[in-house]
């Protein structure tokens, strides 16, 4: 039941994002300056923003950026974390110590400056999609150390596990042992890291706007739509402003529901 519900929610969100151009008659950047800050109506389902742009349209287009790129960035950082964490855990000794120290060093680096340099190097007329793509790639490249530690710790702990000893006894060894036999056991941990990263990256993208990275006006993302709420004092009077937050929560719950159902199919 949970699985069906989760798939339904994600399908609706994904289709809405993909078919945004057909679902609303507006462009995400079109301004109706005579109708700013309007309440929801049949014409504008979620009202309009301060510049008279249709909030529903912007929400759908924002989903394209956030639902596509944040999971992609999460996958990228997870792939790096698995590669490094697994290597460290399996090799042990000095290699593990070196890789762990590298992760610590990486975590402590002032990446803000790297981001500033990247922004400075981008051409001024860089397209919005290129800018947001670069931002999410950077997030993916920078976000691996936390997950790497989890993978390394799990690998180290699993070395003496019975199923691995049994597999070795059966003649399975080398990368095959770890990738085919061990890695699937990390699936719940990796999925948890994945789900944690997605909202983090969506919100980080919005925060990076302060440095001029990420999605810039007029392109919407769930991140920058949520960011508008930080200074908005009328959420109580205008609850429809919470629509991006509601969509993000729905997407995350659906993703988590799906992962739980996959890790424990008997309960679904």
């Amino acid at each position, binding site marked *: 039941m949970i699985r069906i519900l989760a798939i339904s929610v994600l399908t609706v969100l994904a289709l809405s994002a993909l078919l945004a151009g057909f679902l609303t008659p507006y462009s995400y*950047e079109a*301004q109706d*300056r005579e109708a*700013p800050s309007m309440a929801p109506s049949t014409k504008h389902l979620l009202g309009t923003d*301060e*510049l*008279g742009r249709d909030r529903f349209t912007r929400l759908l287009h924002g989903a394209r950026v956030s639902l596509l790129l944040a999971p992609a960035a999460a996958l990228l950082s997870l792939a790096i974390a698995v590669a490094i964490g697994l290597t460290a855990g399996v090799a042990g000794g000095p290699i593990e110590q070196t890789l762990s120290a590298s992760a610590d060093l990486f975590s402590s680096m002032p990446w803000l400056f790297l981001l*500033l340099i990247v*922004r*400075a190097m*981008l051409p*001024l*007329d*860089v*397209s919005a999609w290129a800018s947001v793509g670069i931002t999410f790639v950077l997030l993916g490249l920078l976000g691996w150390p936390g997950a790497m530690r989890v993978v390394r710790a799990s690998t180290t702990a699993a070395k003496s596990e019975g199923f691995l000893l049994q597999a070795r006894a059966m003649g399975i060894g080398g990368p095959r042992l770890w990738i085919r036999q061990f890695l699937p056991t990390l699936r719940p941990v990796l999925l948890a890291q994945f789900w944690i990263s997605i909202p983090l990256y969506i919100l980080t993208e919005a925060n990076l*706007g*302060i*440095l*001029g990275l990420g999605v*810039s*006006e*007029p392109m919407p993302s769930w991140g920058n739509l949520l960011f508008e709420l930080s*200074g908005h*004092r*009328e959420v109580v009077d205008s609850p429809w402003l919470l629509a991006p937050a509601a969509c993000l929560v729905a997407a995350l719950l659906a993703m988590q529901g799906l992962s739980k159902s996959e890790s424990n199919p008997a309960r679904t």
Partner: protein
Amino acid sequence: MTSLFALFVVSLSTFAAEISATAPGNLQWGGELRFAMRSDPKTFDPILSADQSSELLVRLQHGRLLRVNRKTRKYEGDLAESWKILEQGRKIVFQLRKDIRFSDGSALTAKDVVHTIRRVMDPSLNSPKSGAFRYEQGNVIAEALAGDRVAVTFPVVVPSIESEVGDLPMLSAKGDVKLGVGPFVLREYKAASHLKLVRNPYYWRLLSGRRLPQLDSLQIDIVANADMELERFRRGEIHLMESIDAISYDRLQKEMPRSVFDAGPSSDVEFLWFNQNPGSPLAPHKLAWFQSKHFRRAVSAAIRRDDINRLVFQGRATSSAGLMTPANKAWFKAGLKPHAFDLVEAKRLLQQDGFRLQGDVLLDRSNRPVEFSVITSANSKARSRMASLLQQDLKQIGIKITVATFDMPSLIERISRSQNYEVCLFGFVNAGSDPMSFLNMLLSTGPQHMWNPGQKTPATSWEAEIDKSMRAQSSTADFKKRHHAFERVQQILNDEAPVLFLSHRNALVAVASSLGNADPSVDFPRVLWNADRLVWSAR
């Protein structure tokens, strides 16, 4: 550059008005006024203060020789009873009032004034106020004369000599920078939490024979978040907000209509300019566009300034015609109008320069599509919205603009050093009220001549004329001559449009309705400028 692009504070204050805008009945001396500051003061030394929090504390604790009347905008005596400008503006002599005492009871003398000026000039302190006291031609000489008089002589004519000397916060020659002759004295400071100021028992100003200030104390909380400050005001935990945004203003107006004040157009100004520097990495064809007056005026004519005022500032802003706000009655050129929105005129001007529309795209003589980027600060929501409005406005004449946002240091680096930009959307907060504040920006040789800085000789005839007028106004202390010269500068800027001025946001404040004698003004500090007269109504 820093002085213009930072949040610098204009030194203006004035005698308290006897009659206030809000004068509830049954006024009662005593009590505490609570308000908030966004950050801790960076210094308690008035000579070193540059940030807004420090500057506000200076104004509450320290007196000045002169202050500006906020209505007439003319100087009037404060600690100085009278003053005289001599030698065509090279020398100023002040006659001090008698019986003015510091907060420890010691008398203010001419020696204290001389000490203050010498301290400002001390190169080891590198005071942000020292710029007006350093000249290649020689030193500034401050002398204590007989009869409580002080003479300050400059090596050159200083047109704004009254403000340069008269606006310095006076220190005690004893060396304790916390001793002041202002209405309040610092009693307690807890970093990141609060400050408490109590009345100065020796404050010199009297009301009906009674020594001011009327309030017993000020409690200043450090509240970094504007939303939090607003909530605390709504709950009655603080009693005034020196500055609020238009959205907060509208909300408070609905809830507490007697507590909000719109003091009119402030000296904050929003504008954009085109990079016209031939030495910049700008593409030659774009440089040619930007150097054309017709192109700049066409862009200006396509901008709906009313929409910026209405949608970005909720109608609490005025379209701008130039650097000076209309509220600056002393210097604003009467009759100067903001560029009107006129698409027909915009297209006509573009045609004159050989531009033509092909479908929705504007092409130049060489059939290149007219596209450029606009850089602006990433942390300004208002500018981000303005940029979105500009995108749509310019689309109507076939121009495509890309908005690139940067953190402030990166933005400053681009506009002041690398010159790697095309158009910049920017603004000044508390822009200067005297033409001298804009000298480095307007002179073609100036490093802050935004559109083409540091020219050896003026690139255009109109820049040469601006140079001539600015030099004329800076070489005399005769107000009429200065005014005439600066009027010409304002007219040239308006006609040639190297900078497209957009909006002056209004000065919006919130004050508890039971606080009497509050008379909000557009200049900093907007409410606390007459802190000595603020008084509670009997509750």
